[in-house]
């Protein structure tokens, strides 16, 4: 049970409205978001558009705006919003007793999306 979830530390490490990153050796860097509404989400840290680091975007509601070209990406589904098309993998995340856990298998399986035009 425990081995399926990776403890990445206490919730207090990410202030609301911000994101932090988790590099994965041999894999894709993960961005962990803390929304203004005190929810946590994890996505591969690459915008489906031109691979911008989503962790550096402005978080509003459950959407992050990519810092490179302002695509809006849903933190819940990884889907680009509005007229833009593309999707970035999400990583199942849970918070327990003040700590954040990510699903190990999903981190390992995560692949960056193809770059969209």
């Amino acid at each position, binding site marked *: 049970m425990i081995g399926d979830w*990776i403890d*990445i*530390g206490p919730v*207090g*490490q*990410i*202030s*609301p*409205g*911000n994101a*932090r*990153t*988790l*590099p*994965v*050796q*041999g*894999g894709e860097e*993960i961005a*962990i978001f803390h*929304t*203004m*509404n*005190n*929810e946590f989400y994890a996505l591969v840290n690459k915008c489906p558009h*031109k*691979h*911008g*680091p989503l962790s*550096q*975007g*402005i*978080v*509003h*509601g*459950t*959407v992050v*705006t990519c*810092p*490179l070209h*302002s695509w*809006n990406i*849903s*933190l*819940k*589904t990884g*889907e680009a919003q509005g007229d833009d098309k593309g999707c970035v993998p999400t990583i199942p995340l849970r918070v*327990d*007793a003040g700590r954040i856990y990510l699903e*190990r298998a999903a*981190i*390992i399986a995560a692949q960056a999306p193809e770059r969209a035009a």
Partner: protein
Amino acid sequence: MNAPQTMKSLSGEGAAGPERLVVIGNGMAGCRAVEEILARDPARYAITIFGAEPRVNYNRIMLSPVLAGEKTFDEIVINTPEWYVENDITLISGDAVVAIDRENQTVTSASGRIESYDRLLIATGSDPFIIPVPGKDLAGVVTFRDLDDVDKMLAAAEAGKGNGGGHAVVIGGGLLGLEAAHGMALRGMNVTVIHLMPTLMERQLDEAAGWLLKTELERRGQTILTGADTAEIMGKDGHVAGVRLKDGREIAADIVVMAVGIRPATGLAKSAGLEVERGILVDDHMVTSDPAVMAVGECVQHRGLCYGLVAPLWEMCRALADAAVGTPGGYTGSVTSTKLKVSGIDLFSAGDFSGGEGCEDIVMRDAARGIYKRVIVKENQLVGAVLYGDTADGSWYFDLLKKGEDVSGIREALIFGQAFAMGGGALADPNSAVAALSDDAEICGCNGVTKGTVVATINAGACSLDAVRSQCKASASCGSCTGLVESLLALTLGDEVKSGPKTLCKCTSFTHDDVRRLILEKTLKAIPQVMQELTWKTPDGCASCRPALNYYLLCAWPGEYVDDQKSRFVNERLHANIQKDGTYSVVPRMWGGVTTPDELRAIADAADKYQARLVKVTGGQRIDLFGIKKEDLPGIWADLNAAGMVSGHAYGKSLRTVKTCVGSEWCRFGTQDSTGLGIKTEQMTWGSWMPHKFKIAVSGCPRNCAEATIKDFGVICVDSGYELHVGGNGGIHLRGTDLLCKVATEQEALDTCAAFIQLYREQAWYLERTAPWIERVGLDHVKAALFDEPDAIARLAARFRYSQQFMQDDPWARRAAGEDAELHQHLAEFRPFPAPLATLPYTPQQKEAAE
């Protein structure tokens, strides 16, 4: 464990005489479960209840009103001593069960009493969570869980009476903590609430409602410290004396109430060998991993969830009783809602209000009455609601939510509440609802304008919101009736409504100018406050309005407003320019484009050390180092700082560069010291945040080598003085500057520059360069603002210089010293693929030792 016999008793067949039911826990869950069982089959069980507290069952959630003096203990008793007698229940109070022997089906109490059972019910509830800080065991540190805790708080309030009230500190700004704080405040104490998160009750409230709550509690005299982390509880002679925060602040305290949360009380179940995760695991019939043992209430974990509210408890008790009398129904989990029991504050939340995919937020704010309502609709169903200030419709929303009713038919009027939305088919459309208002119904409370007056104004030719505002003043003040006026326009004119000027973003119907004006008029000083008072349509804005509001507030309240990092674009948050591969470029400031061999050596060293992949000279006469990782930024800045260089702000909506030529010092055509004036100008203006980036140049003669006539502010030196030019732009739309004026001295040139920048800072829209701003307002407007009043330049320049004293603080130096370090650091690194054993530098013996 004799499972066959237990199974038999479960089905109820062949039971000889009543079975023995032992209940551990004389609280709300245990007693309610017993009541439910008695209601179904009063003769089935011989019941014994153990309670740790030396009293009968009372309504724990009513402890807040007892503390506040609104109720007495007798009024919150649920089961009187007579109830136990009448129902043949043996109550053993003040004697906690300390062990369960499942083999022999007995329990043992603290006093050594042993009772055997056929069925056991665990209802041990939860324990308050004590944060492990020094001083947590001092006398005067209490929790808020039972009547003894209330008595200690009342005693502290009593002791403080002759002493200015005494000081109470509540750690935890959740439901329970705020109720404790409220109670002690009503008892006359000076109360401080310390909350770790930035928003009060963050699990139940969004940022907007949390802000309203905080404001109201502060108005009532409580001190609310959010984002405050407790370091230590300080004592004196074994008794609590105060609390010290991690940031060093100290708060005096005669009593400290710890209310940071609860955890299921599972110790007894765990030592009895029952399956326990966060809570005691139960199935849909509240049966644990042992078929003879049931559990209910806050101590259980059902389908992965633990509950800390009362409503799920009732539902669990019903399911438990159904199963216990042989007619299993099953519990499938609860949807919960929350109300804060603080008199005079109406607050309700239910369901999921995190928004997101497929979710639609409907927000209504009434600034004048302090109301914030937000409902969340997903796939035609209501999935969440947050109400502040007016919770009359809370139960209606909760009902819609629990039943999962299709709300598409009342979608438009949902936010106005049940009476409005259910007022018939015609009223379900907000326009129809407005149409149904009588002519003397007041539309605009600020200016006392009735519906009849607004309609008459529209019929007389006002066919836009702005026209209505200017002609009859409806919605011209606070703007919270804007929606109503828009409805009246639509009703009266149909399609002929003229759309108004562009709003700031889709989150608001106000324009940039409205927002800037109202920030000053209503002295709005925080982003959530602006959103509430100006009736924002979204809970926390968007990537367009957040940076704009942050700038407007920063400009309006220099030295007072605290910059909101999370509302800043990445470049301004990291003080460097993000590049397409996610690395950053770093540009140190070179005053007026002048550098020294020492600075160049330091830049070269930094480029080597941090492996800059490109070193490029910019158009603004600076050196740009590309390919720097975000983790390395504080390090490279420290090195550049050490050589005397500060941030070049090449990343900001701010003063970028002052470009110069060599001027009269070197150039045979130079008329004035353009380099010197450029350096002075840059020293005056660096660090100032603006609506957009701002570039300056100073050319020493009309040959204009510094290209001053395509800058936001350009100086052309001539023999007789200085020509000042504004509004140039070398970007997509090339625009040459307009000549603003000619001055005779350097000081006048500097003063005019400061005044022009301040005018732009105060009047332009966010992300509007000076060129489109001047095109929009006209050069005459700018000239009038600067020159019509004799002291206008002096006043504007003074405001600029006042603001600059807070801005000219090198952000690189602060980061290099460790500020906001988390912005530059990864959380951790994950290495899922361990290196093969052979590559590990272990001998077999070391490997053995390591294992």
